[in-house]
């Protein structure tokens, strides 16, 4: 989004919190993560360039969600570095809250705020975090809600919406912060099959507009069609990556082949 509201993301920020020109949106270096004795991430190196749509696939327990959640430090890695737009966000001096506004995140379980209307869900962080006026936040929210096709649900509460509608509101909520990149954590896994399409359609539009996206998914069709790169993970490691056509249709690694033969 352009216009004055796109600039306010950087309002009052220290220079160290500003994106470094030319740096990739996401750069992960040697990520390790332990949950107790469980070694979930085993040395992940990953760089995602501007405008890329990276789909992460793999069996459950392979560490894909943990990897995604490490990008905005919902999960703090045991070792390794996370660079967002060139900024080391583990640095305690960095304004992590404000940098998180530039990383949109969509969850498997939507996580809309149930005590707020759809409109309030989309305005609250704009006002409380970015300091936008109620009026400005409302205008941006209405535009984003319209974009995901839910203008008639503005005053509804989340419980009155279907899963697909809730997930679209969640996407609108993230977009209202004008993020530079979006993380999707199995966004369609909790949906009834007939509702998956409407959410994927919104994501497809986003990708077409050049949004940088990292998507953990089981939707092979989406990965093949929209993904610019597919990553196959197993046991905390990246086993294979490349263009979708190569990884999904002609996997080289036996583990990738075994996984795909089960899901396709």
């Amino acid at each position, binding site marked *: 989004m352009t216009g004055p509201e796109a600039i306010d993301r950087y309002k009052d920020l220290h220079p160290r919190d500003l994106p470094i020109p030319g740096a990739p949106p996401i750069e992960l270096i040697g990520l390790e993560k332990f949950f107790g004795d469980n070694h979930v991430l085993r040395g992940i190196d990953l760089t995602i360039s501007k405008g890329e749509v990276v789909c992460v696939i793999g069996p459950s327990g392979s560490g894909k969600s943990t990897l995604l959640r490490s990008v*905005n430090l*919902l999960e703090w890695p045991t070792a390794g570095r996370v660079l967002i737009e060139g900024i080391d966000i583990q640095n305690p001096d960095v304004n992590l*809250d*404000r940098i*998180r*506004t530039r*990383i*949109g*995140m969509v*969850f498997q*379980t939507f*996580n*809309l*705020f*149930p*005590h707020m209307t759809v409109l309030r869900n989309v305005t*609250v*962080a704009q006002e*409380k*975090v*970015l300091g936008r006026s109620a009026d400005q936040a409302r205008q941006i929210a209405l535009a984003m809600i319209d974009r995901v096709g839910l203008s008639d649900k503005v005053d509804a*509460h989340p*419980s009155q919406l279907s899963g697909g509608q809730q997930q679209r509101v*969640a996407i609108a*909520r*993230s977009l209202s*912060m004008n993020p530079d990149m979006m993380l999707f954590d199995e966004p369609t896994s909790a949906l009834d099959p007939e509702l998956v399409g409407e959410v994927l359609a919104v994501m497809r539009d986003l990708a077409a507009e050049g949004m940088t996206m990292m998507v953990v998914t089981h939707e092979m069709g989406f990965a093949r069609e929209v993904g610019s790169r597919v990553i196959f993970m197993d046991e905390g490691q990246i086993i294979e990556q490349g263009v979708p056509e190569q990884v999904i249709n002609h996997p080289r690694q036996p583990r990738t082949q075994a996984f795909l033969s089960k899901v396709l």
Partner: protein
Amino acid sequence: MTLSDIRPTTRRRIGRISSYVIFLAIVVVACLFADWSVIKQNFFNAKVAGDLWPGIVRAAVNTIVYTVIAFVVGLAMAIVLALLKMGHGPFKWFAVAWIELFRGVPALLTIFFFGLALPMAFPGLRFPGGLTGGGIVGLMLVTSAYTAEIIRAGIEAVPKGQREAARSLGMSHLRTTVTVILPQAIRIVIPPLTNEVVMLLKDTSLLSVIGATLTSKELTTFATDNLAIHANSTPLMVSAVVYLIISVPLTYVVGRLEKKMAVKK
């Protein structure tokens, strides 16, 4: 024809009818043997009841005011205590100690301590509202301890994803707690909070151990004073009814409120 020949539904109906008959018989017998003139004279004496007016209104208002003050301040303290207890470091242990202390010591003792012992030890110390004010402070502290545990349970019942969503939108820990977590937590614990208010309403009767002035009496003090004045139990019955008049609509209104919010949620 034996009992087992009767159809089960008929058998159940007979059982139900006979239980009503037995119950009614007990009530009738009790009524026959009771000495109604004595009961009426001592518990439902119209003249004594008339004398209670209008002092009883003042006492009822005082009871409500004391309950509201103790609950509102106690709730505010409880939220802070709950958050401290869920944190780390010395403040956590402070909250734990506070909660254990005021939950473990009888409310009556706490009221004595703040209403009488403290003012006695430090003659310069005066709570607003005098001795009764001190007693209310005691009630507040007791309520804060119980309510803190209720609030903490509510906070823990809010799904983890709510905090994650708020944090991923850039909200700070405190902002997330205030804007996203607490409003949901309090909705979850409205039933036990209502319970706490009703308990508190009745616990204001403990303030009767502290000598009250003519204008600061709550319902129980008012009732026991009049019990002594009239040598008659009617004031007890009247104040019992007034307690019910306050508490029953309260639980009803909260129940309605809860249903309304359940629709939204």
